[in-house]
């Protein structure tokens, strides 16, 4: 039986867990105090040794990213925290910010100290107003307690934190689009190079990291790099939040060492919905190729998941049982990508527009025999051709869906998905499908 390693989520069940006193009582800001006794370069080294990899999806080693900053030239350098969590299925940063915002703020101070930043920004997804408020209050509380502002804890180190709410665009989770949006420009990805480490926010050296990445830093300072590497695998060290959703008995965030399997996580979560069995799942959100029951024992670390043909992504495990139509699920995701495509490049803008129309045909049982090959060819023309990774992500669910469930797509040439997989059987609660509602109106 696998075990959980609650670090970030250790105190989520505490009364008023989001308040500063509760956070401090649980050991909060000990990491910062320790960091401030060290030279910034040593903090950087500690994070490098921990092997902490970016928790936003790409898994780039955080210490290495910080190390890319050019030598200080006297001008400002920035830390920007990406809290624009918008991927379907991904729900780790928002609960973390809701339950334990100080964890992030402590991480921000330590990271800023390590990289020589005096003004950090948190770019929060526009739709989650309650989290923006909680974070703003947390910044205020931390400032009042001397963890932010000038001469933090008497160290002489100054830091301001600005919480910025986006306007609700998936593309702004892409780091360069996020920077443009933060600058007040249209949120579209920038040409790289120059990379943000060289010319990021306001064309200054900038580190952009995910919420969970930065929030993991205080623990590394508290427990040391070796404590962190004692969890996880050799190349995917540490703990991570696994977000189980969908047809699972106890959905939620499970903080466990990287390398845990879905089988183990499902045991912890009470298994798939009672009376049903696993059909397919996403290992890291909707942008990662689907897995099926045959992948239950794939260790959920960066390397093993990649070897098995998908990506660890944001560890957003969406569980679908046998009542779910793959065609319908893939069509919903594609609707999302079509809606969220920023429009900058042709493959993503036009490709998602076309893919959706083909998928909607198939879902309605009105596809043609050429449509599946068309879908695969379109995906081939989008994957690796788009400006940023969003175009690639839009194709993953389609190509993997066809790979594992081709017969369901073929059925789309003659039978609607709602007939093959009545939607009311997939719902957890009693539910009258829209088609039935409309049928009643028409009668």
């Amino acid at each position: 039986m696998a075990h959980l390693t609650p670090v970030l989520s250790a105190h989520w069940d505490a009364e008023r867990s989001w308040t500063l006193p509760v956070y401090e009582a649980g050991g909060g800001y000990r990491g910062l105090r320790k960091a401030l006794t060290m030279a910034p370069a040593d903090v950087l080294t500690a994070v490098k040794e921990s092997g902490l990899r970016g928790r936003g999806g790409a898994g780039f080693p955080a210490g290495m990213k910080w190390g890319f900053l050019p030598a200080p030239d006297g001008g400002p350098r920035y830390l920007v925290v990406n809290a624009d969590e918008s991927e379907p299925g991904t729900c780790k940063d928002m609960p973390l910010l809701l339950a334990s915002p100080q964890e992030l703020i402590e991480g921000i101070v330590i990271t800023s100290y390590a990289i020589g930043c005096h003004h950090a920004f948190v770019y929060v997804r526009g739709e989650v107003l309650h989290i923006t408020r909680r974070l703003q209050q947390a910044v205020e509380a931390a400032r009042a307690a001397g963890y932010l502002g000038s001469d933090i804890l008497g160290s002489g180190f100054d830091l301001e934190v600005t919480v910025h709410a986006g306007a609700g665009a998936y593309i702004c989770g892409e780091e360069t689009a996020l920077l443009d949006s933060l600058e007040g420009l249209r949120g579209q990805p920038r040409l790289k190079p120059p990379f943000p480490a060289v010319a990021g926010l306001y064309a200054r050296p900038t580190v952009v990291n995910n919420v969970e990445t930065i929030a993991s830093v205080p623990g590394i300072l508290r427990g040391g790099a070796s404590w962190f590497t004692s969890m996880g695998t050799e190349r995917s060290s540490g703990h991570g939040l696994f977000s189980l959703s969908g047809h699972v008995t106890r959905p939620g965030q499970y903080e466990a060492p990287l390398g845990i399997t879905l089988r183990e996580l499902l045991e912890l979560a009470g298994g798939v919905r009672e009376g049903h069995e696993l059909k397919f799942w996403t290992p890291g959100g909707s942008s990662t190729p689907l897995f099926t029951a045959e992948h239950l024992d794939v260790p959920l670390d960066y390397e093993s998941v990649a070897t098995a043909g998908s990506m660890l992504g944001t560890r957003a495990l969406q569980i679908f049982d046998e009542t779910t139509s793959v065609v319908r699920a893939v069509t919903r995701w594609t609707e999302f990508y079509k809606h969220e495509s920023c429009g900058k490049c042709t493959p993503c803008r036009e490709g998602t527009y076309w893919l959706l129309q083909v998928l909607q045909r198939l879902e309605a049982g009105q596809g043609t025999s050429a449509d599946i090959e068309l879908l695969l060819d379109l995906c081939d023309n989008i994957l690796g051709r788009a400006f940023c990774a969003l175009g690639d992500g839009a194709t993953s669910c389609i190509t993997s869906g066809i790979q594992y469930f081709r017969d369901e797509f073929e059925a789309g040439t003659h039978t609607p998905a709602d007939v093959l997989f009545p939607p009311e059987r997939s719902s957890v609660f009693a539910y009258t499908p829209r088609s039935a509602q409309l049928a009643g109106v028409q009668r």
Partner: protein
Amino acid sequence: MTVTSPRPGTATPLVPPAPPMVAAAPAATVTFSIDGIETTVPKGTLVIRAAEQLGIAIPRFCDHPLLAPAGACRQCLVEVWAPGRDGAVAKMPKPQASCTLEATPGMQVRTQHTSAEADKAQHGVMELLLINHPLDCPVCDKGGECPLQNQAMSNGRASTRFVDVKRTFPKPIEISTQILLDRERCVLCQRCTRFSEEIAGDAFIDLQERGARQQIGRFDTAVLDFAGESPVGAAAQDASGRPFASYFSGNTVQICPVGALTSAAYRFRARPFDLVSTPGVSEHDSNGSALRVDHRRGVVMRRLAADDPAVNGELITDKDRFAFAWQAAADRITTPLVRRDGELQSVSWSEALETAAAGLRAAMQPADEPGTGHGVAVLPGGRVTLEDAYAYAKLARVALRTHDIDHRARPSSAEEAQFLAHHVAGRTLDVTFADLDTAPAVLLVGYEAEEEGGIVFLRLRQSVVKRGQRVFAVAPLATRGLQRLSGMLLETVPGDEARMLDALVPGVPDAELADAADALTQAGALILVGERAATSPGALSAALRLAERTGARLAWVPRRAGERGAVEAGTLPGLLPGGRPVDDPAARADLAAVWGVDGLPTEPGRDLREILAAAADGSLGALVVGGVQVADLPDPELARRALDRVPFVVSLEVRESEVTARADVVLPVAPPVEKPGTFVTWEGRPRPFPQALTSRQLPDHRVLHLLAEALDAPIGLPTLAAVHAELDRLGGWDGARAEAPDVPAAPAAPAPDGHALLATWHQLLDEGRLQTGEPFLAGTAKRPVARLSAATAADVGVPDGGLLTVSTEAGAITLPLLVSDMPDQVVWLPTNAVGSAVRDTLHADTGAVVRLHAEDGVTAVDEEGTW
């Protein structure tokens, strides 16, 4: 065509052609291969550019050599192999956009010609671009010259797999009265938005919405989603009262790779394959922009920018592009006319020439009785070609035996004439466009680069943006043009220019002045003086002193296309061709020898003002007038009196004018599109252009040749070749030059209460004679406004936006007021905008004292005078 090809045994040609541009040797190079062909390019070269040089065409839409790489359309994908850290050449996992990829040593690029992956990627992107593109090529302006159409044929599928619903938009959006946008045709390459942001700096359109609904739109208060500079203020409104678009918006039509942006003037007018294209040169300003004139069956349908890197790149102003209808206006004069019984009547050429010659001959006779005028003066106007100017210059001296000739149909001064003789004439290509690119600092004196010829502005802006060039301006206010050059205003009251220039001394206590002066001491710094400097006594003298003091080079940038060529051709009272001073006996002898005459008149010539004064008081016998608009002259009333009084007027004109209405003989001449010729840019660069349209109309020099023959004093300039041969034979002047002018500053006294000093200059688009017949263009002009400082506006009691009346004894101009950051007691008016014909209405120009008052019944001034 060579204008003046040096021949063995001759002096320097009169206006020598510019030496060919030589690219500087790159500091570092990169050697790599494309499709197996090894090539060496300067470090930093993009793969797509290197491929062009090898003759390998990679399809593209968003890529444009003048714009920063975007990588948006993804059409130019290629397969790339590059050496890794271990030195082994490995394939990059994804195809790369060659428009954003810099070549690196050892890189191996495989285009669609050698890589199946690149070919598939390009076909895929092309198919995606076409799914939402309408199949309206048969009615689209771009059809037949469309990069999308062409590349769909070369790099696309023969048939479509798209059977679904296309995205549509309502047909076209009027971006301005001239520019229309069909959004469904747009491939969202962002060339137009990037042009307006990066080049013109005048963003008037931007991307809006996202995903498949993403579209180009103009600034609209209902759409919040835009970046960059938004047009603000009343001055930034066009004639229709909407946010001002741009003087350069026509370029977006030309760089649009599809038919999404079209011009109202050309929309649905012609098919590209029916057009005949002839190279041309813009007649609108002294920048000499290269044009492509597209015509069909004798009618010009449109003009496009031609690519001349040494001058205009691939960009022109909207005036260059759209203002050509004047050449085919309804008031064109097609036959010679002679006045009989008070009416102009069509006559044969021979009769017209005989009549003209008889009249001129009579005027040249010594006066029989006191009070009768005698002598002939020549006013060629500032729009002449080099050849025509030369013919006027020679006609005056050889056939009319006078130095009374002045082409400056604008406010001018004796100081300016001396300045031109001393510093400008005979010094061609001393300062060039290329120098604007590299100058660390540029000082503008009496010159609005954007309004008085846009290409200098565009080149300055590129230098400002890319190389951090610093721009300073001696002017009463910072225009939007200067703001977009990040320029520093050296605020100067009209007439005070000389004092300001003399105050620019390195190390003076005033930090701002010292800063400007220091900047001008850097190697390569430039001072550009405009023709308006002539209106400020001492300004040109002070500019010469400043150049001497700082080492900055000084160039004179006139507005009109013919001004510089006319200076070289010697159409000034004190100046003979090639910068030969009239008062230099050696120069006169030199010229007399080439011209085969016994000698040139020794009596000094009179300038425009003196000529008109003489004509008005009856002491002049006749006038030969070229393309001169009376309303452009410093005192139009005096000019009208002069033309009425002078016994005999010969007019060489393209169209009916106030001069032809008063002329005794009217000789029709060809507009630029109907003749070959050469304009000379402000740099002194000859810009030869061929004849575009077949025409029976004659160029001025041929008419003057015939007139001289009728006068029995042949000038021998019947053909362009004859003119060129003579210009070559004549060559430049290596003798003594005229002395530098040394006119003391004469700053105007502060204006009394209720009055102000007038500041005025031409806007690019206004009521100019060469802009008639183009209503779509006129709609994109800036809305005329008067400008005052806040304090002066309060004194006068006119609120921002209220109507201000500016008047003199002669008349009054009423315009909406725009309160501006400018000196008190100074009022600015557009010189020739709709409802603001300053010279004709006020008989005043820059530096004059004018009266200000609120338009009655319009302002909201209460008893206390506050509002």
